[in-house]
């Protein structure tokens, strides 16, 4: 039988937090320089939970939002898990303006909704890709991604799927608050690693730290 609960030490959490911090710093710098998206990624927080506690935790964390949209994207590599981007409702409109998305088709009924949804997904895709990409780069891995999905659309915080992860298994949750510089939008990014990548993650953290022994 595979071991179901992994023990993650305080030191490991500390180094993971530092790596996230570095990765997000690089992500933000590249986003600004290459893609003209100016985002502030705040210091990440790490939680080690059991799968069963996950949806309760996420619900608690986002309880301040009355209305929200959630974008989900899975990443697969040795580093593996799901990313959730939580936007307050109304963010879609702001993002459309931020991306300067063309309005040529606003004539069609429902196109505005679609434009907002697509802008949420595009920004989600880029933001998640930047953060996860830089992190896996630091950890020496290359990941692939599923297409982003809007899993909750302008809803109060009711629907967070309960069966995201095996209830018995360990999940490491990395949470960060982000804000777009020139826009009044802030939201949360959650990265949740699956159980089977925890052992790999621990090895990579050790390897990363070896450089500094």
């Amino acid at each position: 039988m595979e071991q179901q609960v992994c023990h993650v030490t305080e030191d490991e959490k500390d180094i993971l937090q530092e790596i996230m911090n570095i990765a997000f710093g690089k992500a933000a710098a590249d986003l600004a320089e290459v893609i003209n998206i100016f985002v502030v990624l705040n210091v990440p927080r790490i939680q080690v939970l059991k799968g069963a506690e996950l949806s309760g935790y996420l619900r608690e964390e986002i309880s301040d939002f009355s209305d929200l949209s959630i974008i989900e994207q899975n990443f697969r590599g040795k580093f593996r898990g799901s990313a959730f981007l939580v936007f307050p409702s109304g963010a879609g409109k702001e993002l459309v303006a931020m991306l300067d998305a063309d309005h040529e088709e606003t004539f069609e009924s429902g196109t505005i909704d679609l434009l907002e949804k697509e802008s949420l997904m595009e920004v989600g895709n880029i933001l998640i890709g930047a953060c996860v990409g830089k992190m896996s780069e630091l950890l020496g891995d290359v990941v692939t991604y599923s297409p982003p999905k809007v899993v909750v659309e302008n809803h109060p915080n009711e629907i967070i799927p309960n069966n995201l992860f095996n209830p018995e298994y360990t999940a490491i949750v990395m949470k960060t608050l982000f804000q777009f510089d020139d826009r009044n939008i802030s939201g949360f990014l959650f990265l949740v690693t699956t159980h089977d990548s925890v052992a790999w993650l621990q090895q990579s953290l050790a390897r990363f730290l070896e450089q500094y022994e």
Partner: protein
Amino acid sequence: MAKKFLLVDDSPISRKMLKSCIPVEGVAEFLEAGDGLKGLNVFKEASPDITFLDLTMPVMDGVQALEEMKKHDPDAVIIVATADIQAKSIEKVMALGAFHVLKKPPTKDSVREILQKVDEYRRR
């Protein structure tokens, strides 16, 4: 001459990483602090030769600590060590009197390069 380094960062791992990158010639003294306020107090008491300062910290953040340190000693050499490497953020701390910005993660090379700049600056 013994050199006195002050490392201010809330992450012990981060302090450890930085420390391992600082080349030690002869005798060196390392002082550490886990938040901006503690860092400021140590800074005032010990007058370190070189201070490495993180930006995002509890109690007092690095920007505020930097301002207070420069107020206390305008000639102090304070190196901001941060993961926030957006051009804008770098400009901001440089304007506040930081000697240089060290991008995290630190490497032996990047730290040596900055320490050389400090030496050149002091020799002038």
